Each structure stands twice: as C-alpha cells, then as structure tokens.
C-alpha cells in the first residue's frame, strides 16, 4: 500500500473525505456520547437484576476466624450470600496479557484472610443496593488481627508479618521470602568498571507516589446467567477475551460458558487492565442466585482497587567529562500492595524502560517487588515508565549542569537511536529502533519553548514568582510483539471485515475503546485500504462469542498491532473486491485498484463502484464479501516524546503553576491528529497531577486509606490545567506500522512529571526527589519552613 501513503496529504489539511490518513475526522462514537445515548456498563439494565454489596475488612491484616451470615440471609430481598467457604479453593491470576502458565496466582474469589483495609470478606446479592448494604452490615465476623506491614520498608524488615504464605506461578508454588514477590535483575556490561571510568558520579534516591488512575467511570460488572448455563457478562474491562479467560479459570468453568460483551469505557488508563476481584464475585453470586446481578463499585472501592505502583528508586549515574554516560545503576523497591497483580511485570518493564533510554555500556537494574498490607496496585498508563523516567531525566539535568553542557545537547549525545536495541517490555522483548525522530522533537521543542532562557532563569533567585523551564524526554514501546514464537507475553489481535450490499463495510474487533478513539483509527485504516470514507466503515459492538481474540487494550498497541491486523484483513478484502471488479469489468485483476469508493482500471476511465460490486455479488450469489485476519505481532516500534514545560513557582506559598507546554512526539505517521493530540494533552495532565498533587495516602497506624474519593484525592481541574499547549509531530514513518503509524498512549504520560521536576529545579535551584512536589515540599526545599 505504499502508493496510498505516497499520496497522503499533509497532516489534517485535506478536505477529501477519501483521504483517511492524517484526516481530522471526528470519531464515530463521539456523537453517541455527546447525546448521552451511548450505553456504558453502568447503564445496562436487565429486568430483575440484583445489586451486590461487598463486606470489606476494617483491618489491614486479619484472619477470618468465623463468619455468621444467617441474619443477612434471612433478610427479605437477600438472594445470595457468599464467603470464602463458597469460593473455589484454587487461586487465580488477574493479568490479561500473560499466558496462564506464567501468571502469578495469589487471589481467591474470597480469601480467608484479609490483607488490606478493604479486602473482600463476604458479598451479598439482593433486590436493591440498600438491602444488600443492610445485609452486609448484618454479617458477623470474628477477626484475628495480625501485625501489618503498611509500607515496603516495613514489609521487608526482619520479623515482618507474612502477607502471603505462597504464590503460584502457573502451577509452580513459590514461598515469597520477607514479602518479596520477586526480585527482577537486568543488566549489561560491568557497572563497577563503568563507574571506574566515570569522571562524575551522582546518586539520588527518589520516591514516586501511589497515583490513582481515576477514570470518571467506576468499575461495574453485570452478569446475566442464561437458562443454558452460560453467563452473559458486561464489564468495564480493557479486554473482553482476557476477562473471559481469567474469569473462567477463577470459577473453574470452561471458557465457552462465558460471553463477555464489548463496551466503551469511561476511561481506564490501566485501571481495567486486569481482571479485578469483583468480576468473579459477581459471577459467583449470579451462579448461586440464578439471577442477573450488578456490582457497581463505589468511588471509594474503585479508588482502593488499583493504583500506579509507588516506588523508592535509587539511581547512580556515571558520566565522562565529555558528557558520555558510562554507567547506570538503578535499584527500585516497588510496592505492589496486598496482591501480586501486575507488580512483577511492571517492575520488569521498569528495568527495560530504564535500560533503553540512553546508550550506556554498563547498566544494572534491580527491582524488588514487595507485598504490603495496602490496597493493590495495578497497571497505569506508562506501566513502570514514569517511575524510572523521573530519576533518569532528573539525573540528565543534574549532570548537564554539573558538566556545563546544555541538557538538550547532553540528551542528544546519549539517546538510543535508530538501529539500537531496546527493551520493549521487560527483559524478554528486545527489538531494534527502526524510526526515530528524537533529534527533531528535541531541537524543535527547544526552539518553541525558548530554551535559551533556561540559563538566565537559573540565575534569577529574587522575587515572589520564580520561573523555570524544564525538559522531560521519554519513549515507550508500541505493543509487545516478539520475533521468537515462544513468548511470555500474549500479543495478537484479530479483525473480520465484510462488505455490505450498499458498499459500506463492517469491522469486527474485540479491541476495547477506553476513550482514546483507537477504534476510530481502525475505521480510518480500513477505509483507506479499501478506498472508502472512514464514515463508511461501521465498527461493530461485539462480544467474545462472535469476535476473534484480541489480547487487551494496553501497551500503546491498539493502532500499531491491532490496527495493522485490521489493515491486513482489509488488504485481503481489497483483493477480493478487485477480483470481483475484474470479473464485472472483464479485465485482468492486476489492472484494478480501489480508490474513492470505486474499483478503477489502470490507464482507462472505466470503473465500478464498490456499492455496485457488492450489489452484483448479491444478485449473482457470489457470497458475502468478507475477510479475516488474526496474527501475532513480531515487532514493536518505539515511540518517542518530549515535553518542555514552563512553570511559575510562588516562593511564598510553594504553589506551582504550569504556564506553557511544548510537546514534541514521534508517533510515526499520524492517522488522526485530533485523537493523537488528545492523547498528548490528557497524558500530560495526568503526569502533571503525578508530579504536583496526586497521592493515595495510607494511614500508617490503622492501614486505612485516607483519601479514596475526589473530595480528598486531588486531580487537576479545568482551572488547574495548562491550556497553553503546543503539540507538534516528528516527520517519521514506521515501516512496520499501519500506514507508518506507531503508538502514543503511554509516552504521552511518561515524560510529563520529569519535565515538571526539572522545570521546578530550574526555577528554585533544587532538584526535588520526593514526588508529588507539594507546595510544602517546595517551601522546605527553599528553607522557608
């Protein structure tokens, strides 16, 4: 399809509705959302549906000595009650993208021991939320309180209570020592030798907070048990097939007994990346009661079920006087909370992200994944990347200033570039960079922000408001594809496309749209391949019964991996259409090409419309014109971003305002600029929240989460966000991506916090290493308090 690409006009400037790539076309789901007509999972209504409430532990660590549910069960309206006695004895795992043979399994549908304040003790299905809540309150539980480890240091201290006696990795049983789930080690070269070569060595310990994903939609599950014994499931999940698999395993029933319906999500950002504990509970209650059930988490419950992994990260960097990085050593203590969730995988990725930022001959990463008696963490946009990026990018600025080299220049000397190997997803996914626009985005970004002011700003120390500019640079993989066939990460997608009798197309993919517009991107890719307009491609709402497998919406893979598979399916369909057109026009198939809704004969003005082909195929009974493709990705593509931010620091209050953002991104060829810009805006706002105010706090005496709601957990509002926001793209083309495209979702987020940290340092002269940088920390850094 290179001919189509060559004809693609400049980004977003065309009015030709058939020029789909790079076109600023509104996504098809937007009008459904703007009219309130789109049904989110929480809007699903089934007659006779019960509501579920969960009894949660008030203790951070306690054994269940006894539970008496008799009063609850006797209450009118209560239809089913479950406790650990009803749960399957086999532990289950949560992750969607790991094969079952590898996944850590330490969850029981309902455990017999509570491991954090909020852990599940029992659940009730009743005729209303109110009845269910009263029934939950009527359950009598006797707990035996155990000592609790409420942070990672306490958890690994000698004598700390054992949070998990065992965890299963696939079928292998392991006993975590000192609450360490796993220790991840990666490395290259010899760091001791590397540091011996260095002229400058710096070392700092950073702490990065427990940030909550905070999608506006709360987790919701609806399970409808059918008369044939199957379960219909609607769920706020990033993967319908992944949920089907994990749910079936958790319940011990065949996959095929479950049909999960695809739904648009009200945001997710990783919060719906894995199966949580709530889905099996809802399913078990549906099975026990024989009635449709709904479990809608409260905001508090939702906020206490997922977060970014908080971490303490020690980084040691060695550099030569000429600005060459020679040694990098990172040790991270990663708090996964009460359950494994994706803690090990996030830490492996963190090591990979760390080792793939700069060309460093001697590198070592050690990551300790630690259980604590706190709410479990989960994947969150970036998947370990921001936790590593903040230390690395802080050090680049510190080293630059120490050596008197411009920070942009220092990055340009050291960054990993085209041809270099990089870790795309932990130690086992290695690929080479094929397209790389780092130099372009760094130099253009520096010009746009007025980077030359940085040195002068660093000298200004007087005045109530100090201004600073700072740079953060990041990358992320697009997908988890690997060349080798035996893999520890699942990475395949599928699409089926059919042509309707009016010449439009229907696309079926199990890929979930969490709000990013990834399905709109698919419509554009398919339309472009078929010579249709994007609005001629109808994206079906599907389910696991009727769609090919897709692993999960994550890892910035939607466009690069699933979009590529959709393109391949569309190419098959294109060839069928060409063949039929050749039959109709009585020419050789090689002479036919599709464009502008028509099949045209090269070198003539003869053509037949796609609608006419479809109608002819129906009349002549040639069969439905359709094609399918399902395949594994065998490559990844690194997308690169940088953010230059300008901040104002009020030295009297410590308050930080973000005044201007310049965001450069190498996402390959841009399929839809509106959608990509939206990713960059939103990713930045989340990163700025991470840098400035967001932190789930757990009371270190009681284990209670202090701020699990929007009245107390603070994210940026419209009044706090920076809207002076310049987005630009590198002129790159990724040969392995659909129409040259790469991902963007995660790196949109990865660089933002680092940029803020560096801008604040430029303003106040202190590199703050403890995030979020609250006003109080600024004043302490300034010595004001």
């Amino acid at each position, binding site marked *: 399809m290179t001919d189509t690409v060559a004809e693609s006009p400049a980004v977003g400037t065309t009015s030709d509705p058939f020029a789909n790539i790079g076109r600023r076309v509104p996504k098809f789901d937007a009008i459904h959302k703007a009219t309130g007509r789109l049904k989110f999972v929480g809007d699903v209504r089934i007659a006779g549906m019960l509501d579920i409430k969960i009894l949660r532990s008030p203790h951070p660590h306690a054994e269940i000595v006894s539970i008496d549910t008799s009063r609850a069960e006797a209450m009118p309206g209560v239809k089913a009650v479950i406790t650990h006695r009803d749960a399957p004895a086999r532990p289950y795992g949560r992750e969607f993208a790991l094969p079952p043979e590898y996944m850590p399994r330490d969850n029981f549908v309902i455990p017999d021991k509570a491991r954090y304040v909020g852990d599940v003790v029992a659940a009730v299905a009743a005729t209303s939320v109110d009845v269910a809540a*009263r029934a939950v309150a009527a359950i009598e539980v006797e707990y035996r309180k155990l000592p609790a480890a409420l942070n990672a240091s306490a958890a690994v201290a000698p004598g700390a209570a054992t949070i998990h006696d065992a965890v299963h990795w696939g079928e292998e049983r392991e006993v975590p020592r000192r609450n360490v789930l796993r220790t991840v080690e990666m490395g290259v070269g010899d760091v001791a030798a590397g540091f011996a070569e260095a002229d400058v060595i710096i070392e700092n310990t950073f702490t990065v907070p427990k940030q909550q994903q905070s999608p506006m939609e709360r987790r919701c599950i609806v399970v409808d048990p059918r008369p044939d014994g199957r379960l219909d499931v609607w769920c706020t999940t990033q993967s319908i097939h992944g949920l089907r698999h994990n749910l079936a395993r958790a319940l011990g029933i065949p996959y095929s007994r479950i049909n999960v319906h695809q739904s648009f999500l009200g945001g997710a950002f990783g919060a719906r990346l894995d199966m949580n504990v709530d889905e099996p509970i809802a399913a078990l209650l549906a099975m026990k009661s024989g009635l449709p059930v709904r479990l809608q988490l409260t905001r508090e419950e939702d906020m206490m079920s997922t977060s970014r992994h908080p971490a303490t990260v020690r980084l040691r960097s060695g550099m030569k006087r000429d600005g060459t990085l020679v040694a990098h050593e990172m040790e991270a203590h990663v708090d996964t909370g009460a359950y494994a969730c994706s803690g090990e995988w996030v830490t492996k990725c963190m090591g990979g992200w760390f080792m793939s930022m700069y060309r460093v001959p001697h590198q070592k990463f050690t990551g300790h994944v630690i259980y604590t008696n706190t709410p479990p963490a989960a994947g969150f946009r970036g998947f370990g990347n921001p936790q590593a990026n903040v230390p690395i990018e802080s050090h680049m600025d510190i080293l630059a200033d120490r050596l008197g080299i411009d920070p942009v220049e220092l990055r340009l000397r050291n960054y990993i570039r085209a041809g270099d190997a990089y870790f795309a997803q932990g130690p086992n996914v290695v690929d080479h960079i094929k397209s790389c626009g780092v130099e372009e985005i760094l130099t253009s970004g520096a010009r746009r922000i007025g980077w030359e002011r940085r040195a002068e700003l660093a000298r200004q120390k007087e005045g109530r408001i100090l201004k600073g500019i700072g740079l953060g640079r990041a990358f992320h993989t697009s997908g988890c594809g690997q060349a080798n066939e035996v893999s520890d990460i699942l990475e395949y997608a599928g699409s089926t496309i059919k042509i309707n009798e009016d010449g439009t197309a229907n696309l079926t993919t199990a890929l979930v749209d969490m709000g990013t517009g990834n399905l709109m991107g698919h419509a554009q890719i398919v339309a472009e391949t078929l010579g249709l307009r994007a609005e001629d491609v109808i994206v079906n709402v599907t389910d696991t019964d009727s769609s090919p497998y897709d692993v999960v919406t994550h890892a910035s893979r939607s466009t690069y991996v699933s979009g590529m598979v959709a393109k391949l399916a569309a190419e098959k369909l294109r060839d069928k259409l060409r063949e039929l057109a050749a039959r109709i026009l009585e020419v050789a198939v090689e002479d036919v090409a599709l464009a502008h809704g028509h099949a045209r004969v090269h070198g003539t003005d003869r053509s037949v419309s796609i609608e006419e082909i479809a109608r002819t195929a129906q009349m002549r009974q040639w069969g439905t014109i359709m094609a399918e493709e399902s395949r594994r990705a065998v490559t990844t593509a690194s997308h690169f971003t940088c953010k230059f931010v300008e901040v104002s620091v009020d030295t009297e209050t410590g308050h930080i305002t973000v005044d201007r953002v310049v965001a450069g991104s190498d996402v390959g060829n841009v399929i839809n600029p509106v959608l990509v*810009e939206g990713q960059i805006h939103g990713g930045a*706002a989340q990163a700025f929240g991470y840098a400035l105010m967001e932190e789930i706090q757990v009371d270190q005496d009681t284990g209670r989460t202090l701020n699990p709601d929007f009245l107390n957990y603070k994210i940026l509002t*419209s009044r706090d966000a920076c*809207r002076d926001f310049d987005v630009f793209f590198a002129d790159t083309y990724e040969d392995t991506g659909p129409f040259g495209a790469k991902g963007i979702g995660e790196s949109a987020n990865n660089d933002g916090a680092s940029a803020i940290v560096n801008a604040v340092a430029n303003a106040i002269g202190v590199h703050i290493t403890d995030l979020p940088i609250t006003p109080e920390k600024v004043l302490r850094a300034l010595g004001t308090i």
Partner: protein
Amino acid sequence: MNRTGPADTGRGANDRLLTLVVNGDPVSLVVKPYESLNSALRDRLNLTGTKRGCDAGGCGTCTVRVDGQAVYSCMYPALRAEGRSVATVEGLGDAGRPHPLQAALVEGGGVQCGYCTPGVLMAGCALYADDPDIDADGLAEELAGNLCRCTGYVKLIEALAGAGEQMRGNGMRGNGND
C-alpha cells in the same frame, strides 16, 4: 443508620409521588423520601445519559439543570424537584440536530471517553445562559467541578469556547432545552 426495615423493592409506606417536568415533558413517578434526583432520572426514568461518577459531589458527571441552574443531581433531593423543570443531556439535541455545544465537542475532539461529557454539556449550557459572553478562561474557571481525566481540558475548553462564538453569532444562549 443500620436499622433494618422491610425490603424496599416495591412500593412502601414511605414512597412519595413526584411530579416534575423532564426535558419539557411532564413526568410523574414514585421515589423514596431521600432519593437523589440522579437516582430518579437514571434508575426510575431510565435516563442514563446523566452519569453517576462518585455519588458525593466530587466529579460533576451527574450535572443536570434544575430550572436552568446547574446542580449535582447525585446530591439533589428528588422531591425538591417537585413542579420544577429538569434538563438532561437527552433533551439537549440529537444526532440530526445537535446543540452547538454538542457539535463543538464532537468536532473539536472534546469527547474522549465521554463519561464527563453529559455533565460538562449541562454545566456549559448553564454558563452560557448566565453569560453569553463567557470566554475560555471563564469556562475553565467555572467548570472546575466537572472533572475530566482524558482531555487535559485543552480541547474540551477550546471546543466549548468555540461554540460560544458560534452561538453569539446566532443570537443563541445556552438554554437549548429549558
């Protein structure tokens, strides 16, 4: 308050009859004494366009207009709406004839996941009804109670402000569905 009462699935002694106008049409329904307007709309009238993101006045996704004023329906007692006019996103416009704010959000990339969108639209309408000249900064100031986790508020505010220019051109205020 854990006093055990009868199951409240059907009509109970405490039920109240509520009569109000929703999106221009008179509606009568039965609600519990302290049921929220949000529950009345979503759970009784099946008007699920209005969202419920936190139930505690913290997110803004439940914003509707009562007699033109933007309120959080999750904390607005349904009975207080007796005789009043309630406007929700369902009455704002449709795909064929979208309200300028709807069209602007769709065209301008102001909709990502769409969960904040209905509340933002109702709040935006109230702001334009109050001050047809409100600009982007004014909108950003007053929409602080409508959280959005997707857009960073960049295209969201830009689109709403752009619609304002168009509405001023048409001599239209925000009250598309009063």
